[in-house]
């Protein structure tokens, strides 16, 4: 039984990662799961300087999901490299750093700073719906996405994963733009923009008014988009959106994802990542499937 997959030359023990922003830098969940069991750790978005994020309330619950409007609070690349990357060095797990910025230059600064670190891959967040500048502005127009991808590829020393927004008419256009500009892989989906109103108070629940919807509620949308992208591009896909169990993860893989990320469900079940890995192993065993790689995109076969 072989759960290994590789993305842009980076070998993963198994296809199960953490979704950016839902797992910190691993520290917090290291008390619940053995971080060495993970396929990769994807860290919270980091910018060139510290970002304070949005006012609170920043999170709320919705049916089978949640909204967040953290607004990419982060300590900036300096603290991140000194503290978070230092912490992760003790683990035998590839680290994928999620990068955010307000301008192309800000993204590039982070990308360059990470050039001579042990980081395995960069995930470029051009799809966060919770900040006004940058982020999603690059992720909703194919030409803007092409441009930023191209610029980042010029400077990046590590493989580049472009993280796509589902808040678009045609996700395949975005996937193709990323691929054409040289992205090594794409990851999707980021959150879907949503809103909740407190009808007793007649007020927005989130201070930011809107937030990003994640959790099992969005899984069918995410699986569909992964499937569409798998047919549009030939670079590998990291699929995510509401994964809670091994079956959920396998849906993404069968739709065409090479790897998957577990996100908001970590909050409901801090053991989710490892349970997904174990469930996947059981599935391979029970179905006499030799490698997980056989299952990638198998729904079409």
């Amino acid at each position, binding site marked *: 039984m072989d759960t290994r997959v590789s993305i842009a030359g980076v070998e993963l023990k198994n296809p199960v990662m953490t979704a950016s*922003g*839902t*797992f*910190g830098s691993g*520290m*917090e*969940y290291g*008390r*619940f799961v053995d971080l060495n069991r993970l396929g990769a750790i994807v860290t*919270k978005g980091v910018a060139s300087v*510290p*970002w*304070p*994020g949005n006012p*609170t*309330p*920043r*999170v*709320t*619950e919705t*049916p*089978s*999901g*949640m909204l*967040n409007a*953290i607004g990419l*609070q*982060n*300590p*900036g690349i300096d*603290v991140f490299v000194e503290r978070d990357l230092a912490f992760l060095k003790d683990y035998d797990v590839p680290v994928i750093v999620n990068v955010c910025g307000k301008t192309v230059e800000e993204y590039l600064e982070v990308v360059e700073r990470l050039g001579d670190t042990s980081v395995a891959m960069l995930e470029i967040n051009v799809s966060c719906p919770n900040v006004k500048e940058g982020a999603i502005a690059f992720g909703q127009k194919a030409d803007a996405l092409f441009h930023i991808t191209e610029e980042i590829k010029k400077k990046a020393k590590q493989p580049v994963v472009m993280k796509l927004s589902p808040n678009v008419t045609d996700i395949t256009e975005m996937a193709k733009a990323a691929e054409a500009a040289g992205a090594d892989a794409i990851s999707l989906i980021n959150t879907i923009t949503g809103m909740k109103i407190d009808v007793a108070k007649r007020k927005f629940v989130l201070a930011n008014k809107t937030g990003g919807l994640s*959790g*099992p509620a969005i899984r069918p949308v995410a699986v569909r988009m992964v499937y569409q992208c798998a047919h549009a591009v030939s670079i590998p896909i990291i699929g995510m959106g509401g994964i809670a169990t091994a079956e959920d993860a396998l849906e993404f893989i069968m739709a065409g994802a090479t790897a998957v990320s577990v996100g*908001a*469900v*970590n*909050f*409901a*079940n*801090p*053991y989710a990542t490892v349970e997904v890995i174990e469930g996947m192993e059981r599935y391979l065993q029970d179905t006499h499937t030799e490698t997980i790689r056989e299952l990638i995109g198998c729904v079409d076969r």
Partner: protein
Amino acid sequence: MDYRKKETTVVVSQKEISAGIFDLRVRTQAAAYCVPGQFAGIFPPSDSRMLMRPISICEANAESGEIRFVYRVAGEGTKLISALKEGDTAELLSVLGNGFPLDAAEGKKVAVMGGGIGIPPMLYTAKKLAGKTAETEIYLGYRNNDTFLASEFTPYGTVNVVSEDGSTAYKGNVLDALKERGFKPEVIFACGPMPMLRAIKRYAEEAGCIAYISLEERMACGVGACLGCVAKTVNKDEHSHVNNTRVCTEGPVFDSREVEI
């Protein structure tokens, strides 16, 4: 002294001790690791609700292995939790947060203050302070004469029951009562609604005493990973260096001088 797990606990008992206020006891090994001011995340028994409900520990007993929660039904989640019965299971994420620094009260004149549904954690606090302080005065603020939990504080200090409508010994808020009694605490431990905490922060600055206050914020993870639950701090916070500290891990109890509320 370190325990953090999500686990299935068994409900020992649950009863409504006052209108809409429930007393829930569950059995878990976590009971041996609690400090007053810490909290647990209780998951509503519902598979469409992803997030835990942060509820303070009202009492924890290492011997019986029981944790007690006293909470108000505020919305759908707590409503579902309130339907749990003896023998049912309850999903718990615990023990979360940092409690009150009890050592800071050693040999001091201490005021323990609770307002409304902020009173439950103060029961555990008062109990654990018993015998440590020079003097403990307890101030409990209610809306009216529905003074749930008040009688349980008696063994741990002088209890002053305050109500907005004046139907108890003192009328007004907990600080009014403190001033009326002329009590001059060196340390305050408090939990309650934001206006009360703001007033205590101001009082402590003026009176030159130290106040430890427990804050509330919407939470997702409860363990410091999501950055959902931040409070504004005066100095740069440890985690992000942006004056936004995590209530779930750096709090919920803060030195009132450290936070901007």
